[in-house]
């Protein structure tokens, strides 16, 4: 099973996975991990006395299986805390909160402004990342499965959208704007209407993730996370990666217990 807290502290080393999503957690070509998740994780590990972090970069859809298969001890991808996932893995308290967004081709030729557009117009195709929560949103909004293009990685979205293989990429607002910055062929859909699902606007809360059974590590991280969140550096990290003040404030609005028990 996954390394226990004691083992980690004894070795002074922990394996943390990211899914190459700017700005949540990614590895630059030199191998350095950046993003809201990794930066906060570094602060937490410092508090826990773990000196060495071994960063693992993997596909988003491999994060949960990877935890279950002990390929890493912790995930710092700001994975949204969802009831389904809570049954598979453990989540820390929320570290971030974020809303949804849409990446479209430059000039938004198909005039897309909401996730519900894909349900209303069966001509439109939308890309989602394998394993991401946007799938569930699309399904709940009644989007036809045939109009979903499943891509393996965030960065593939630029090509997918710019070439018209999909008309838009559904992702969090920060992901979308991060991608839009990288390439002139794409932009963030303006006047975006947040999806309303089960009567509520969608907002996601992201946290660190652990293999089930590793409550000890989760609890230690929670404790350290609370300390980090109390410092001004925490908000700076988040805003430095483009999170708005309301995103920062939002992170305190829900507890993991509530999120896991939702519905």
């Amino acid at each position, binding site marked *: 099973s996954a390394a226990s807290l004691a083992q980690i502290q004894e070795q002074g080393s922990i394996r943390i996975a990211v899914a190459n999503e700017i700005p949540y957690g990614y590895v630059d070509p030199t191998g350095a991990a950046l993003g809201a998740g990794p930066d906060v994780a570094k602060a937490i590990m410092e508090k826990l006395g773990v000196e060495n972090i071994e960063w693992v970069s993997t596909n988003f*859809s491999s994060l*949960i*299986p990877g935890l*279950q298969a002990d390929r890493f001890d912790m995930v710092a991808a700001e994975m949204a805390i969802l009831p389904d996932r809570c049954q*598979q893995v453990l989540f820390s308290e929320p570290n971030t909160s974020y809303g949804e967004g849409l990446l479209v081709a430059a000039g938004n030729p198909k005039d897309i402004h909401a996730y519900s557009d894909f349900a209303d117009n069966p001509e439109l195709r939308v890309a989602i990342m*394998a*394993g991401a929560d946007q*799938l569930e949103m699309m*399904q709940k909004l009644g989007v036809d*499965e*045939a109009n979903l*293009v*499943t*891509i*393996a990685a965030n960065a593939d979205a630029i*090509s*997918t959208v*710019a*070439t*018209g*293989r999909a008309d838009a990429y559904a992702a969090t607002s920060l992901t979308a704007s991060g991608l839009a910055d990288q390439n002139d062929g794409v932009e963030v859909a303006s006047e975006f209407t947040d999806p309303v699902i089960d009567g509520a606007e969608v907002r996601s809360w992201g946290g660190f993730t652990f293999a089930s059974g590793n409550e000890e590590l989760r609890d230690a991280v929670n404790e350290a996370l609370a300390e980090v969140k109390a410092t001004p550096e925490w908000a700076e990290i988040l805003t430095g990666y483009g999170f708005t003040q309301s995103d920062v404030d939002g992170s305190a609005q829900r507890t993991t217990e509530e999120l896991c028990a939702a519905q």
Partner: protein
Amino acid sequence: MLFGYEWDLSSPLAFAISILPILWIGLTVTIQATVLGFLVALGLGLVWAVLKAAPSRLISWPAKVITEFIRDTPLIVQLFFLYYVLPEYGIVLPAFLTGALGLGIQYSAYTSEVYRAGIEAVGPDQREAARALNFTPAHTFTHVVVPQAIPRIVPSMGNYLVSIMKDVPVLSVVTVLEVLNVAKIVGDRTFSYLVPLTMVGALYLIMTLVASAGVRLLDTWLPKQGIPLK
């Protein structure tokens, strides 16, 4: 839920049965990609074979280098190239076409060798006999060389057809929803990979056994009257 089919996680068997229709959809894509890729490999391979046999080195040499290059580089990278690079030059192919084309290109390097070997196996004496009878080169090729080359070519081509089928899962990297990709998505959504992946393995085993048997059958059906087959 995928493609409108719900899965039933109550037991492995129930799960397996409930995802059969989903895998079937992936399987049809696998078969389509196999057939289309094979056709491209057959056509393009013939082009390479003709170019490689060209009397001018200016033509034959580049053809040889290109086919060697194709043969020595991984399909997955070739697919990435077709999928992500071509659009930068204005050529946007749908994922399925990209995949089938990539398969066809990769295997054209192999099939061109099959053509070459098949044609070379028809000895010079046959060409000389045809020339002595005043056949035109085109008639010699179509009526003397090709009919004798076909029985030599068919079994190897059949084997490549099976190989192409086994390479179709690589097309998942460019979002083609072939059977492995579908199974993987089922796994991603249920967090249970064992049943769908095992089923794909079993399906593949059945398909290759059937296809190989088909190739052997075809081979025994082929007329080969006295054509010396090595």
